[in-house]
């Protein structure tokens, strides 16, 4: 029974923590601009996330090592340092985007000034991380993030063309579009893959596995959480895309501010729907801010061999503690410069996809290595899919920057 509760909580946490500011922005814009034709990218990205998430959790349970430790062992120093810098920079920018996103949504709830809310948000997050044990940090934001389910309920309520939605799961390229729009479509494909596969999610998930002292017996729970939890979370992102196609496209809205997505719940459910959506966004974005802030510190500490972990008291892992507090402080500085959260999201998404190949290569290599994994080595399906998705990530990484510049961040 205890195991069942553990699995249920794990899955619910994964669902509630799946959608962050970048997924919300790109899902809504994708639906509004390209109707259902980008659903398949969320589906494929989520399968990839399930495969890599499961792999990183299994490696953490068997080797007791998170991803960045493995990166240090498997990559030469040069590529390792490049991966470290890339990961820290993208985590920092993403953390700033999530804090900015949270403050923006709080502004819609309270009407208070944005800089004040950004400061209060950062302070609250630092205090929560300082005070709560790891498992409760994860659950607090994951479970309250479930308020985002109001978007999925809205989808049912607005009666979309379910046949069209189903066809969206089939990989496609709308070749009838003018060339400019086809290239923008390509940018959205890359951006969604990046948003779903953000590297911080793997760093956080595998570091969490080590923090919670997963053992070989936890491999099954890990598999369920990574596949079912991420899969259901992805359905939430897809529901935001579908709602945007049905509710925003006919009135010619391509969401350009974060708060627009909340209208997807306000249109069918009025003020109650709006408040649930806004609160869900606050917890989902701030949960992602916690994950990115800690991921940055995890990456640095693990690569440089420092003591790390939220289970340790701050004075037992001082450099780790300084690293995550500094990440939040720097993120706040970035937010207070006045850069729009949506711009930060775009930079984070483009930089992340460039870092992804270096994140996942050592992971696949270790998960395939019997010397580390014994009987828990990758099976043929996991291995084949892992390499196929790895190739997909590499192609996306090469295409990301040219597509970003040519399409002006998807605005073309």
């Amino acid at each position: 029974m205890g195991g069942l509760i553990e699995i249920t909580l794990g899955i619910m946490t994964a669902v509630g923590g799946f959608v962050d500011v970048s997924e919300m922005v790109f899902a809504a814009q994708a639906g509004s601009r390209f109707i259902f034709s980008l659903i398949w990218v969320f589906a494929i990205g989520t399968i990839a996330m399930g495969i890599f998430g499961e792999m990183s959790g299994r490696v953490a349970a068997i080797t007791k090592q998170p991803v960045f430790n493995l990166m240090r062992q498997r990559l030469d120093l040069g590529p390792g340092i490049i991966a470290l810098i890339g990961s820290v920079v993208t985590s920092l920018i993403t953390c700033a985007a999530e804090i900015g996103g949270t403050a923006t949504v709080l502004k819609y709830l309270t009407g208070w000034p944005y800089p004040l809310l950004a400061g209060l948000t950062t302070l609250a997050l630092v205090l929560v991380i300082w005070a709560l044990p790891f498992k409760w940090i994860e659950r607090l934001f994951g479970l309250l993030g479930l308020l985002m389910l109001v978007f999925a309920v809205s989808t049912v309520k607005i009666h979309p063309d379910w046949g069209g939605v189903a066809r969206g799961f089939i990989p496609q390229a709308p070749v009838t579009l003018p060339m400019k729009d086809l290239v923008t479509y390509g940018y959205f494909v890359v951006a969604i893959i990046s948003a779903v596969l953000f590297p911080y999610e793997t760093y956080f998930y595998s570091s969490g596995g080590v923090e919670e002292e997963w053992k070989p017996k936890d491999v099954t729970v890990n598999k369920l959480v990574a596949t079912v939890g991420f899969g259901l979370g992805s359905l939430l992102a897809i529901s935001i895309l579908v709602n945007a196609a049905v509710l925003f496209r006919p009135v010619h809205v391509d969401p350009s501010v974060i708060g627009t997505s909340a209208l997807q719940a306000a249109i069918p459910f009025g003020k109650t729907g709006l408040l649930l959506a806004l609160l869900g966004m606050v917890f989902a974005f701030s949960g992602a801010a916690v994950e990115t802030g800690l991921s940055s510190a995890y990456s640095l500490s693990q690569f440089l061999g420092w003591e790390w972990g939220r289970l340790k008291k701050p004075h037992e892992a001082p450099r780790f503690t300084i690293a995550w507090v500094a990440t939040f402080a720097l993120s706040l500085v970035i937010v207070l410069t006045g850069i729009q959260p949506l711009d930060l999201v775009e930079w984070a998404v483009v930089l992340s996809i460039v870092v992804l190949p270096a994140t996942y290569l050592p992971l696949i290599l270790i998960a395939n290595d019997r010397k580390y994994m014994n009987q828990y080595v990758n099976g043929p399906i996991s291995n084949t899919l892992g390499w196929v998705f790895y190739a997909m990530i590499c192609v996306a990484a090469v295409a990301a920057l040219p597509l970003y510049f040519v399409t002006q961040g998807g605005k073309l």
Partner: protein
Amino acid sequence: MKRKSLLLLLVLCAPSAGHAGDIDSGKLTAIRGIRTAAAEAALVVQLKQQGRVTDTYAEEMKDDAKEELESLRKQVQQKNPDLLSITQAAIDATGASDIGRLRAITNQLLAMEGPHGRAD
């Protein structure tokens, strides 16, 4: 290999170069930005009148739309001055919560956009 790279470069440059008689990329981006901000403002005002959103939310969203439009106005002032008057009209209509005017501006901009981005 060189030929393939050249082909890829040509494909990627095609949108920037545009076709004869086609709208240029910078202007298209500006038109889309103004159109969506005006359309968002119209939707928010409509939902506020129907009592479906809170006053605070509606005011903050309108402020965001105006801010976005102000920033686009600075942009078009330098690069596409022919869009200046419609941008200013969108700012004024947002401030006045004039749904009819905002919808008319949206439709006018959609006509200027042409067939782009409508993946029906």
